[in-house]
């Protein structure tokens, strides 16, 4: 049980590292938001699942935290995407505009 939890927390931390590197290297704001939301959601879910494997008596609180993160994280990313689209940010490589020429 303990080592399964450690392995899950390790993969979650690796997802956070991938997210941080992508946040540094991606060219424009929409790809940055893509990498920032999806990778951190799977990372936090793996960390919470690993914690539930290590301490099974805390499962209810951890489930509450997981459901909360799972609801709010895509919602805030959608709000930021809509706001940056309204304020006129553009894609670095926009294939639709190139195809419409």
């Amino acid at each position: 049980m303990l080592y399964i939890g450690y392995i899950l927390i390790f993969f979650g931390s690796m997802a956070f590292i991938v997210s941080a590197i992508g946040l540094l290297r991606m060219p424009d704001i929409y790809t940055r938001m893509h990498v920032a939301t999806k990778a951190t959601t799977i990372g936090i879910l793996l960390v919470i699942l690993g914690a539930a494997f290590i301490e099974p008596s805390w499962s209810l609180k951890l489930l509450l935290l997981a459901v909360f993160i799972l609801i709010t994280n895509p919602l805030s990313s959608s709000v930021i995407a809509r706001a940056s689209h309204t304020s006129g940010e553009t894609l670095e490589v926009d294939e639709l505009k190139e195809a419409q020429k």
Partner: protein
Amino acid sequence: MLTFFTIILMSAMFLTLIRFLKGSTLSDRVIAFDVLSVISVALLVVLSLHFEQSFYLDIALVFGLIGFLGSTIFGRYIEKGI
């Protein structure tokens, strides 16, 4: 082992903080703030495993709520102004 996870999460936090300080637009900084709050929640879960006390999970829940409210309010601010 938990110290090792803390080091990994702190290095992810450091890389995100570079984007937070460097970011060219306001939306970049808001995204980096969102990622920072989620990494803090993960760090609090690891901390509660390390000290074996479950009240850190309550702090993690409140921290997630405050991070969500912050990024949502900043999104509305980018869109419409105050």
